[in-house]
């Protein structure tokens, strides 16, 4: 038995399932860091100004019916005609806007456990606590559904506030827009938390014509100089320590 297979089996056992299944993002560097791709049957978290944009790309890759659960008080909402413009299929979205976080979470448990959805987008106005996130993870773990928690914070670009939070999600991504023109959008991806490896940075580009993701630059941890990079430096330091 090769080491890789053994690793896979350990991961599957950790998650309480017989077999690990992943959604490759199609970019070798990122998929390697995640040991193959985003785990299905798991909850992932997205923060930052472009969280919704990146989550929408993952939804497109996953396909199937997407449940979009959001707190009705959140003013920013996915705009279906633009989803079509970004290459997604708005007709596959089923939305459920609820006033109350408790209702939202009970809906989320129901949807995550139902094995009917490809992705479940859960938009919350403030980060979930560890117990809430853990419950979501338990609900989803027997399925091939991808749980995506979006906690988009348009007012901040820093990741500092995220560092203290140790949710029960498998990964946490901080996504922001670096540059934008009519042909492409450049995103800064910071994988702030990664159960399958170490935190990483990438700069990726979305081609507006094809809606494909390309790697623009790898800023892996070895090339990163914490003194120069305020962005995520603290996390990296703590990782090395």
């Amino acid at each position, binding site marked *: 038995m090769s080491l890789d297979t053994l690793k896979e089996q350990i991961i599957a056992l950790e998650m309480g399932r017989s077999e690990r299944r992943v959604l490759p993002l199609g970019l070798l560097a990122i998929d390697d860091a995640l040991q193959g791709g985003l785990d299905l049957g798991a909850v992932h978290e997205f923060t930052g*100004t*472009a*969280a*919704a*944009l990146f989550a*929408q790309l993952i939804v497109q890759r996953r396909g199937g*019916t997407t449940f979009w659960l959001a707190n009705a008080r959140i*003013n*920013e*909402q*996915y*705009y*279906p*005609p*633009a*989803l*079509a*413009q*970004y290459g997604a299929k*708005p*007709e596959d*979205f*089923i*939305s*459920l*806007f*609820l006033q109350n976080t408790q*209702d939202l979470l*009970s*809906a989320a448990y*129901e*949807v995550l456990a*139902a*094995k*009917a*959805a490809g992705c479940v987008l859960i938009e919350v106005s403030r980060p979930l606590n560890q117990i809430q996130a853990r419950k979501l993870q338990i609900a989803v773990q027997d399925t091939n559904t991808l749980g995506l928690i979006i906690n988009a914070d*348009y*007012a*901040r*670009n820093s990741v500092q506030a995220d560092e203290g939070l140790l949710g029960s999600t498998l990964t946490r991504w901080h*996504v*922001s*827009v*670096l540059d*934008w*023109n*009519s042909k492409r*959008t450049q995103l*800064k991806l910071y994988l702030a938390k990664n159960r399958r490896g170490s935190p990483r940075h990438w700069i990726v580009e979305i081609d507006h014509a094809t809606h494909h993701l390309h790697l623009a630059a790898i800023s892996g941890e070895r090339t990163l100089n914490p003194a120069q990079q305020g962005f995520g430096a603290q996390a990296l330091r703590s990782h090395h320590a």
Partner: protein
Amino acid sequence: MHEANRMFVSALSRNAGNMGFTPGMSLADIRAAAPDMLYYDANPMKDAKCLRNLLRWASRFTPRVARGDGQNLYLDIAGASHLFGGVQTLLETIQNQLTAFGFTARLGLADSKAAAWGFAHYGKNQSNIRADTLQDTAKNLPVEALQMSHASTAFCRRLGLKTIEALRKLPRATLANRIGLDGLKRLDQFFGEQAEVTKFARHKERLIEEQQFPDPLATNAGVEAALEALLERLCQRLSVLQQGVRNARLLLERVDHDTIEFSIQLVRPSINKLMLLRLFSHHFETLDVGFGIERMVLMAEQTAPISARQMGLNDTTSNNHGELLDGLINRLSNMFGHQYVQRFSPADSHIPERAFSREFALYPSAPQSWITPFGKRPLRLLKKPVSVLLNDKIEPNMPETIFWHNRECHISLLSGPERIEPDWWRDDPDWRNGTRDYWWVKTDFGALLWLYRVCDQQKTQWFIHGLGS
């Protein structure tokens, strides 16, 4: 009623009838005689519908109800009258209720359909004719009460045979030559000597299952078990009819005469007992059985044919998946209210917030293709546009800094403007400020904003309407 350029009356009020007018007279004649007569266009469709409704109402007295020609309803009350306190009380009840509805009605009760008709039209109102008195009471009825053909009736009149009695006295052999076999048949039918076919209205099968409990159910578990039994019965009946439940309602009658009501809705008709049970049992969390439930009624309010789904050879997973999805939509719709579980469909409008519509996921419609708007649209639209300038600032040109999410940020222009005009035919409160010019800008902390400017005479305002990320 119109007929070949002539208007004639099809029905008259009692007063008009008393004045000597009869249906079938031309309107012009009547108006000449009584110029202040009120008249309305006849609406046979509406009349028929009204009669149909009355027929349904009448089925509360007996399941065997039928519509005759014209404005006649027949009720076969054999074996039903004692439930309403006897024949006479029943007649009064029917009369009173019809009067309360605003109808003028005449009732006749007899052993044969023809006799009932005859007495209702030409006898005393509410006449209740028993079989042994029929011969006597029918003596003085006019021959019209027999509903013979017009020719036969007119013929009898001409011969001076004005009453049924007069006809009965004649020997049958000669009578057949006079009024025809048809007239003879009517006469026999009147006295119940010959059968008359009645086509009773067919009732839609009422999909109701109920159960009385001599010992009231005191626990939720008991209610659930009883509901399972009711569902089992209902689903069995439905499966025979090839129908599935779309809407169902459950009534729980408590010992203290309080009724608790639950209803469920389904995205696709179903006879899956466990699925229906699960939808109901979700409501049981809030159920208070009080001193116990003594009666349960389960109604399938709306049903639809079950579509047998084609199962591909290697396609079992996707089929199964569709069922899981339907089940999930059902559960969510029943947990939170079906109005909250929505799908999106494209709408034809250039106004950004009108370019899509929401529909209930519980009531799916055919998917339509999305037309890509001309300009770049924001991935995220703000439900309420946010003003980005401090109150007293008025900026005709694009501001360099805006105020958003409690902080100031510098912005740089990316593209624009795109001009969007409001719909002039619609008074939308959000668009009363008139034309908007939209720009894409980028803030210094990496957010893409869709800004618009509205100008009126006094001032120019800037708002954020969407986000590119």
